[in-house]
């Protein structure tokens, strides 16, 4: 059998590479701090010695006992180390009673010497190594069988700024940053209920990315929270680079063009969704939070819809829906009407269209597809270019190329109008990923329109809507609350009803506490308002 294996190369691969630090750590998971300084330091030096930013500072403590401070110089706050750790360690007064035993020494160090908030002891060397990588400073002392951890991590942090991808007219100007701790702060500051929970997970073998699962206990459904935790815990990958990569591991349908998880940079939006009974997933290292579950209506709603008054909000929301539908079907309708059913449009306009298209040598579908692709290229180019150049490019692209294409007889003026309207329509969709989904489908519909005219467009639309109807996000039907119909939810779908008229949380999320508004609040609001400054009354009072 061994001969067989050798012949066919089946045997276990003989690994010739030297063990990596993580191999060593895995082999010696239960290695303990010995208390002999040189031995422990050598162990850690073997692990990290090849890094130039790994600092081993040997020192003599106040009682001339040798000790060693270890840290990664780029990860820690050096001022703190100098001022609050090194200085007291070396200069503290020697206690009157001699500290013979290790236990007394440990107590003395933590309680009397070091002026630092987050301090704890650890005896496993593997944990010590992990802590070093996290940015903690380790103090090893001769004769102590535990290492002192000091949370001195200092990572460059961007200031809290206005989120660039989701601007609002009215609403908070703060957005998430890359640091998970800051983001949790932003949420906690807005949501001061004891029921707010943040459950931390670590995902990624190499990146050890911290992931916070946030929800409001008593509102979010338990099974939903459990499912989110289960799906996250099942992810075993070397690195989580961004919330976007995490999203792809936990979404329901991986092949659907439609996003089933919403992302946002806005803490106020997160708080609103948390209070609806959703779960927010924060990932360390990215300013984007994931919101699950997500239904389609969420992708055309913005915070402005709720901060503005209902009538205005509803109108603007309807405009957005029109833009959405435009960006999906406009080119395909144009192609099918021009190429198959010109009798539908009024004769005068049909003549104008035909006149415009007279010099164009291609079928309408080719013309539209070429222009659409050009537009997509322009859009992508503007996105990737530095901002200073981007503005110039978009003007050159849109004005000059469009005008030149018409003048060259390459496209008809109406095609340019249609393509431009479509592109603008797709920009009006607040969620970038949903806009992309519709953009992809627009091409499919245009091709179908080129083959079968309106019939093809209808078949395509039926396929798309049926797909959306069959889609689920964590079990929630994607087109809720429209189908399956829910009257309470419909008030906040394509219209936005007054807030006092929506006393319940969305039913499709099965919140544990379904009511949002106290029953008498609605009555108080609907009562006839008193008029303290009625022009008649103050005069009477006089």
């Amino acid at each position, binding site marked *: 059998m061994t001969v067989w294996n050798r012949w066919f190369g089946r045997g276990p691969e003989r690994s010739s590479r030297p063990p990596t630090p993580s191999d060593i750590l895995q082999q010696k998971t239960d290695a303990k701090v010995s208390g002999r300084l040189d031995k422990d330091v050598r162990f850690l030096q073997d692990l990290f010695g090849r890094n130039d930013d790994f600092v081993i500072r040997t020192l003599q403590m106040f009682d001339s006992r040798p000790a060693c401070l270890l840290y990664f110089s780029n990860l820690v706050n050096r001022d703190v180390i100098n001022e609050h750790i090194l200085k007291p360690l070396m200069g503290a007064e020697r206690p009157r009673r001699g500290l013979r035993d290790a236990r007394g020494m440990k107590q003395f160090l933590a309680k009397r010497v070091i002026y630092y908030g987050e301090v704890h002891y650890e005896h496993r060397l593997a944990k010590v190594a992990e802590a070093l990588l996290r940015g903690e400073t380790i103090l090893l002392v001769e004769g102590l069988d535990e290492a002192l951890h000091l949370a001195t991590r200092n990572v460059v942090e961007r200031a809290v700024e206005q989120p660039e991808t989701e601007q609002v007219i009215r609403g908070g100007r703060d957005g998430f940053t890359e640091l998970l701790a800051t983001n949790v702060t932003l949420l906690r500051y807005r949501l001061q209920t004891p029921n707010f929970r943040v459950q931390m997970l670590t995902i990624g073998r190499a990146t050890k990315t911290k992931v916070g699962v946030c929800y409001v206990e008593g509102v979010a459904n338990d099974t939903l929270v459990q499912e989110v935790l289960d799906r996250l815990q099942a992810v075993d990958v070397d690195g989580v680079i961004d919330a976007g990569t995490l999203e792809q591991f936990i979404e329901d349908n991986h092949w659907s063009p439609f996003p089933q998880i919403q992302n946002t940079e806005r803490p106020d939006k997160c708080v609103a969704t948390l209070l609806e009974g959703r779960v927010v997933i924060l990932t360390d290292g990215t300013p984007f939070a994931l919101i699950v579950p997500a239904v389609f209506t969420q992708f055309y709603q913005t915070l402005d819809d709720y901060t503005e008054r209902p009538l205005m909000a509803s109108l603007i929301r309807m405009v957005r829906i029109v833009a959405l539908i435009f960006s999906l079907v406009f080119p395909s309708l144009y192609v099918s009407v021009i190429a198959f*059913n010109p009798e539908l*449009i009024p004769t005068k306009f049909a003549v104008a269209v035909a006149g415009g298209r007279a010099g164009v040598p291609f079928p309408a579908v080719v013309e539209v597809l070429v222009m659409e692709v050009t537009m997509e290229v322009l859009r992508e180019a503007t996105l990737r270019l530095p901002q200073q150049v981007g503005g110039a490019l978009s003007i050159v692209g849109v004005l000059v190329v469009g005008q030149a294409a018409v003048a060259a007889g390459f496209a008809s003026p109406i095609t340019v109008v249609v393509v431009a309207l479509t592109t603008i329509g797709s920009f009006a969709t607040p969620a970038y990923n949903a806009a992309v989904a519709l953009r992809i489908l627009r091409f499919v519909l245009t091709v179908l329109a080129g083959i079968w005219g309106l*019939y093809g467009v*209808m*078949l395509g639309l*039926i396929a798309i809507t049926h797909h959306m109807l069959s889609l689920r996000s964590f079990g929630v039907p994607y087109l809720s609350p429209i*189908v*399956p119909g829910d009257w309470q939810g419909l008030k906040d779908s394509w219209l936005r009803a007054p807030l006092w008229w929506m006393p319940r949380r969305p039913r499709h999320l099965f919140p544990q506490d379904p009511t949002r508004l106290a029953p008498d609040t609605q009555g108080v609001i609907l009562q006839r308002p008193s008029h303290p400054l009625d022009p008649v009354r103050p005069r009477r009072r006089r």
Partner: protein
Amino acid sequence: MEAPRFQTVTFLEATATVISTIIGVGVLALPRIAAEAGNSGAPLVTLLGIVLSTVGLVLVTALGMRFPRQSPVEYSERIIGRWPARGVSLLLVAFFATLTGLAAREFAEVVVTSVLPRTPVEVTAIAMLALTAWCCRANLTTFAYAHLFYLPFVLAPGLVIVALSLKNAALLNLLPVVGNHPDAGAIAAGALTVSALFQGSFVVAMVIPGMRRPRRAMAASLVGICVAGGLYLAIVIATVGVFGAAATAEFLWPTLELAKTTLLPGEVLERLDAAFLMVWVTAVFTTLYSTYALTARALRDLFRLGDHSLWVTFLLPYVFLIALVPPDIVRLYQVIEWVGRFGLWITIGYPCLLWLVCLLGGARGDEPHAN
């Protein structure tokens, strides 16, 4: 029928399923069928047809509510014995597969005649059938969602056409109500053909096992057939009222002709027939969707398989072949009439028989699970 966790269909969804299943490609030819049978008595013929199919639907629904967690294939075995029931179920499968194929062919003919004259009818038919088959793999919950979602698009064109064309209608065209030279035989035959257009409503038998509260199935069926029948009746009245019975009988698809006479106020669109036809694609799709799903699920139950999606793919070539059998449009309508009349034995006669045996033998299904 489905696993218990799929018992999600609500009253509204069941009603929508019945309505949008009934309203299909038949609406285009219906006024001709009715006018041929009863000339100015066309509405009467339609009404009789609706009454007859209501009887059938009530029977099917009553049976379904008696066996609220079983499909027709399953409970028929329980009522009249395994092998006879299996034979009839096989016939049922064959009938609904044929119905699907013929409806697809009929609509493909309409599309090719009116909007895509240079496209082969096979291509239009297979496109529609392929879409239907692709959608059919979904579960019953999604099936009911789809019917609810498409309902407005199914109802809207008919209602708009009726509303816009009534100004051209003349009451005189509809008189006498019983028709000139009434012939009971012709009226009865016409009523049978009209009632054959309602056979898709048998789908309620498939929906009941997935309903959250099967007790409301009867209400869903009745509301459904009232809405769909009301729309059909309104379309017949409008068509005969506008064109007169003699002209209506001459048109191949009088409803489409009616659509051509309508005009939107403001003349935004010069002609509406193509637009209406396109929205009707939805109506045809929902009908095909129901009959196709019914066929696939009946086959699944017949062969005791856990999943119907295997049959969905397997059925497609057969349904497509059936769609290609009639050589031309004249023969197509002969075949449709013949198949439709034969189908009445399955969708009305067979439930009648099952119901009688039930009454005599007292067979009853399990109580629905508490939900």
